[in-house]
């Protein structure tokens, strides 16, 4: 918590210049009129989104609605075509320097884990701290073991990803991202590739992270998780943010017709 408030204090002055007067701190993410096209297909259609520090957002919506594209634009894994994206006050303007700075502030967990299969669990976790942050091997190992313990998997450190279950792999992926000490965590359908009995262990890990005050954006269909953890639900359809509401309100009384049919279809 102290780390978060410290950041607010140091960034406050810079943001003061172009922030709206009522806004006291730099939002973790600010998107203004963001567009993303794939050929003729519009994946993001004038998306506006503001995420405060420490906020937990669940992005949901039907398949192809642009949810993944949305969070993949936040760390510039996808380039947005138009509009403004600020992450912790840094503008994502396709400049290398800014992209690097934003990627240092964000961690990402993928649907397909994307662990490096030729490295052990420990090597997966220490690679970035050592090469991108210049840590020594010993420092990186301590850090990695700390986070592997946090995701309750330290005993698997010397195994290869292929020797672990899907749930274990995804927890390693979370630990690997945390080793870069991100301020924002992006989850792109983290449980969609898992067998049902492994979904829980990953969601538990994410809940713990949320309790620690991490800013989180999760694309997920786990509505139980959304209800319990999210501060806000962002519902997308056809590349647009159709509705944003607290989980309570969203699940009880979705404003849009599209959200209502969506909820009818996924909640059995």
């Amino acid at each position, binding site marked *: 918590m102290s780390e978060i408030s410290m950041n607010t204090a140091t960034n406050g002055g810079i943001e003061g210049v172009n922030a709206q007067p009522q806004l006291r701190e730099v939002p973790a993410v600010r998107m203004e009129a963001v567009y993303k096209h794939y050929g003729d297909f519009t994946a993001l259609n004038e998306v506006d989104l503001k995420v405060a520090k420490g906020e937990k957002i669940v992005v949901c919506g039907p398949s192809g609605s642009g949810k993944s594209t949305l969070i993949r634009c936040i760390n510039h894994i996808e380039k947005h075509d138009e509009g403004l994206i600020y992450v912790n006050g840094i503008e994502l303007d396709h400049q290398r320097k800014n992209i690097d700075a934003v990627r240092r502030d964000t961690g990402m967990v993928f649907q397909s884990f994307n662990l490096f*299969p030729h490295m052990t669990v420990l090597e997966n976790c220490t690679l970035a701290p050592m090469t991108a942050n210049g840590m020594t091997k010993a420092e990186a190992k301590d850090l990695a073991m700390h986070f592997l313990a946090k995701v309750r998997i330290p005993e698997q450190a010397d195994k*290869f990803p292929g020797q672990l279950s899907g*749930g274990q792999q995804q927890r390693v992926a979370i630990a690997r991202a945390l080793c870069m000490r991100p301020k924002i965590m992006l989850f792109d359908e983290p449980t969609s590739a898992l067998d049902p009995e492994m979904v829980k262990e990953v969601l538990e890990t994410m809940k713990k992270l949320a309790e620690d005050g991490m800013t989180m954006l999760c694309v997920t269909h786990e509505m139980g998780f959304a209800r319990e953890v999210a501060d806000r639900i962002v519902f997308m359809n056809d590349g647009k943010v159709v509705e944003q509401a607290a989980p309570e309100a969203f699940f009880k009384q979705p404003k849009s017709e599209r959200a209502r049919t969506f909820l009818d279809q996924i909640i059995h």
Partner: protein
Amino acid sequence: MSHFSPTAAVNYFFNYFLMKGVLVTIGLTVAAVIGGLILGMGIALLRMSSNPALSGAARIYIWFFRGTPLLIQLVVIYSGLPQLGIKFSVITCALVGLILNEAAYLAEIVRSGFMAVSAGQREAAWALSLSPWTTFRRVTLPQAFQLMIPPLGNSINSLLKATSLASVISVEELMRRSDMLMQEHFQILEVYAAATAYYLILTSVWDAVQRRLEKHFGRSSAAKSRRAGARVPVAQTSVEASA
């Protein structure tokens, strides 16, 4: 003369003159692999370039050298180029021909290796703020290399035998020296039996090396087949990205 003399064959096998030819064959192969890999990597990089001129040039190179016999390439370099005033020593001619030809095959192997590494691996590296160089050296290259080993092994096996074509431009490697012995003593079966034995030994040694390499670089993928709990998330990221 209607008999085969095993003793003569064994004698040819231990013939010092022939053994030196074996060393030339090994030398040609090793040099052509190293040269071919370096040139082939470069051509593969050009081929994967988003610049149409560069990838087009690489494509034409590959099309040309894979589409013509190595024998013609060697003969043109050895006896055709002097007509244009370009003249190399015999051994240089053989090396140039073998490297240019091998590079075309290796470029395609290198390229397919890199293409087979999933996009998610690169995305994960970006998300972790790894530099492009670290991403290449620690993430993409090792995985691509692992995928390249089997086709690379085949290509090197073919190359080892293809060096015999250099005999046509009078490089005194194993084949040429066998011909020379044969013309001197006219014990055709005996001489070629010795040469055949050498080629078999060389290809078998390479097979063993290749198996060791596959085992060494495949240590993590051996475990992959035992994976439990993941519903094989193949290429889901790219599907999702284009959705």
